[in-house]
């Protein structure tokens, strides 16, 4: 994933398969809660997805199932409300062929990104991290005023 433009209120990215997305902040309360439910035991803002995955894999199976559900909810929430793009024509039909029929706009967006746009867990994690950074005002924290 490539960051095309970084501002304090929105970030434009290009995914590995060429789709350009604009990201924006979402509500903090839900994200805070989902992060706490995920059992984040340390600030993950400087961790790679692999490091977070490693932390999660050390838990019991039941915990991991709960964690997976919560991680999915966090992904869906950030994609559903933090990406300003709708699935293009035909994408919903394609999802339907895969047995997926999300019935609301945010769910359609999240499902489209998950199944048809993002290349894998790492890219998904990076995009979610961009939205969380916007949500908690961390973009450009190190004096970065935004780049084109």
């Amino acid at each position, binding site marked *: 994933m490539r960051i095309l433009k970084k501002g304090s209120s929105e970030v434009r990215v290009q995914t590995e398969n060429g789709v350009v997305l604009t990201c924006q902040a979402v509500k*903090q*309360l839900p994200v*805070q809660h989902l992060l706490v439910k995920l059992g984040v035991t*340390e*600030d993950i*803002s400087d961790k790679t997805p692999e490091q977070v995955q490693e932390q999660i894999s050390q838990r019991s199976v039941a915990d991991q199932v709960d964690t997976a559900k919560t991680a999915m909810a966090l992904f869906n929430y950030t994609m559903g409300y933090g990406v300003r793009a709708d699935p293009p024509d035909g994408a919903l039909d394609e999802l339907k062929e895969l047995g997926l029929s999300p019935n609301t706009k*945010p*769910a359609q967006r999240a499902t489209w990104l998950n199944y048809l746009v993002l290349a894998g867990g790492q890219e998904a994690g990076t995009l979610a991290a961009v939205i969380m950074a916007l949500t908690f005002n961390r973009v450009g924290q190190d004096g970065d005023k935004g780049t084109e």
Partner: protein
Amino acid sequence: MVQVFGGSVEHVPDTDNPAYQSDLALYYLNMADSELDVLAGGITVLEPARWENDPRIEEIQSLGIPVKTITDYLRYIALTNEDMQAVAEKILYMSTVTRQGIEDAEARLKIEWGNAPLDRYRDPPSQLKASLLFTSREAAREYGYTWQQFCELTGPEQSAVVAQYQCSSKIQWLQSEQHKK
């Protein structure tokens, strides 16, 4: 640990330490999350009359996020980040002693000294620095409340007791200063 004059060592908190910053961020994350769990008990949703029927619930649930309790509803739908601070302030105001509650009570008492409102006079000089909790306990004791009785009062009532205690202390000091002259 840093070495100081004379070769002795002292503990100096390193607030730039990444581990400290990380722990602090996590602490705030947990505090912010728990805050709503506590505050939700003091909130009644008036509009919509039945929050369970809010159509936005379906949207959130379609993302795999259950909205089953009023806390869920407040967290995912009703409250924005800005609302949360205002709601917290209001509930604290209604529940306990607050600076705003004390100021409001003082205004209602309409005390004047020498034809000027009492708050125009500076507070009595003192070397004591104490928390609002200490002042509240002193005020409760002064007016004959047990701590439990005091805590059972509403927030504005508790603040009024503290306001009266502080105003009385100031009046006593002003009187003693007047006698000195």
